[in-house]
């Protein structure tokens, strides 16, 4: 069986930052990533990030991966990275099992683990929602920004949260027409600067609207949209038809929590955090000793928060297993302050009301 001080599951923004801060504290780290490339969803974020300098604000997400990987390189001797490797089991005795590529199965028993598995896109229920051409907004982002392939010619975006607004803008940058953005909520959920940016390009944002039905034989050809009342009930006679070959569904993400649940961490369903998330302490340690979590797996937020959570969980996990840097308290307080700064606005209030319910002192 292999051994390591710390295993980080997931090589996205949270996982990479956890690996950096744990390695800088002196721990040996193994990062396990199921994809062939590191960076998680950063690799398709062509827009500039919000936040402040410490969270790489104003830098494009696609460039943040390189910044983090360069930082990680400083600790070459302590860090091992395994891509194309999926953790398939986490057991009571602390053993983790993983599958490298299709055929190499191995076991490892680390002193501590940081689970940073991220989140995945939710779907929406309506007739014919399984037609090809109806894609997650993030999927379309991957297709066009990673592989340079247009999803189609005309897109209807469902969801006016940050992802819906950002992906709409990125579709226009790729030369694809966005016919409208709709959202069942009565208000735009994403940052209004994003909304204004896409609105002044002539794309209507239809709040209090939902999808009634998609129509098409082999692929989506038409989408029928209608208004909803304040109880989200569809209003008869308010239908609008859109002839589109793509519909993007951007109705939020939900934490990828399977490994946490499998390991026996106490989980709680918290709507504000978009799903079932681990109960944890302020160091991001779950109810299972030496199993930490960070990023969207602990509740869906912006990537800036995921990175800071990663740094915090990484430094706390390494301290817990005996690698406590001299400036531990100072660094920890800095991460805690960064998180509280990111969450102190109106959007953050919602997140904080969720976090309150899972943090045990």
């Amino acid at each position, binding site marked *: 069986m292999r051994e390591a001080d710390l295993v980080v599951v997931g090589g996205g923004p949270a996982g990479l930052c956890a690996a950096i801060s744990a390695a800088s504290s002196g721990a040996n780290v193994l990062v396990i990533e199921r994809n062939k490339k590191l960076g998680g969803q950063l690799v398709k974020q062509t*827009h*500039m*990030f*919000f*936040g*402040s*300098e410490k969270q790489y*604000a*104003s*830098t*494009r997400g696609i460039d943040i991966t390189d910044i983090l990987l360069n930082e990680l390189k400083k600790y070459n001797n302590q860090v091992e990275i395994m891509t194309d490797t999926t953790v398939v089991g986490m057991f009571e005795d602390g053993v983790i099992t993983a599958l490298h590529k299709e055929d190499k199965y191995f076991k490892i028993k680390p002193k501590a683990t940081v689970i940073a598995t991220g989140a995945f896109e939710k779907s929406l229920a309506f007739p014919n929602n399984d037609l090809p051409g109806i894609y997650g907004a993030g999927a379309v982002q991957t297709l066009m920004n990673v592989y340079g392939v247009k999803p189609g010619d005309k897109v209807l975006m469902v969801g006016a949260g940050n992802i819906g607004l950002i992906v709409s803008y990125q579709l*226009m*940058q790729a*030369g694809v027409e966005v016919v409208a953005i709709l959202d069942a909520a*009565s*208000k*735009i959920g994403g*940052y*209004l*600067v*994003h*909304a*204004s*940016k*896409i*609105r*002044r*390009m*002539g*794309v209507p*944002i239809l*709040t*209090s609207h939902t999808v009634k039905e998609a129509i098409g034989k082999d692929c989506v050809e038409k989408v029928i949209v209608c208004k909803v009342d304040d109880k989200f009930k569809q209003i008869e006679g308010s239908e609008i038809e859109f002839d589109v070959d793509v519909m993007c569904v951007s109705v939020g993400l939900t934490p990828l929590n399977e490994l946490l649940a499998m390991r026996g961490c106490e989980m709680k369903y918290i709507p504000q955090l978009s799903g079932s998330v681990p109960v944890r302490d302020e160091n991001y340690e779950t109810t299972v000793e030496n199993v930490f979590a960070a990023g969207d797996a602990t509740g869906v937020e912006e990537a*800036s928060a995921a990175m800071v959570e990663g740094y915090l969980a990484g430094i706390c996990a390494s301290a817990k297993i005996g690698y406590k840097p001299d400036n531990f308290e100072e660094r920890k307080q800095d991460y805690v302050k960064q998180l509280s*700064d*990111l*969450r*102190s*606005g*109106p*959007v*953050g209030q919602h997140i904080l009301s969720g976090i309150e319910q899972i943090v045990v002192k």
Partner: protein
Amino acid sequence: MFEKTGIPSKEMVMEKFPTIDRINQGPVVVVECYKEIPCNPCQTACKFDAIYIGEDINSIPKVKNENCSGCAICLSKCPGLAIMVIDGSKSDETVQIRIPYELLPLPKEGDVVKGLSREGEHITNVKILKVLNPKSFDRTPVITFEVDRNYMYDIRNIKMEVQS
């Protein structure tokens, strides 16, 4: 309505504009950030202390018009592309406006292109004066165009359909 449509009202827009006297003195920023979000690169980018957010990065940026040189560095730094520069010192009939523009094709100097409102409606045509895209702007070019003063408070975007 703003939160339903993404279109700020005339009053909201006017609040962000400096006085006409200040506009006529020379270039100055208009920071159209209406809602608190955790973000402060505009403050970090400004060398003249003309944009202030302060300790709480969720605060709405405040502009000190007297400090602003109209250098437009903040335009390509704002992740929301919410900042423009307006300059009324060059002519009595027109103003010069600078906006960040991240689409292809980029306009060229001398092009006449469609001028769009905050709703994306074609309200007038504008003449492109300058297109800046240095490496330091990190792929967010800044376009300078000239527009009739009658549209100075309404225009916010351009669309490339060149009419020569």
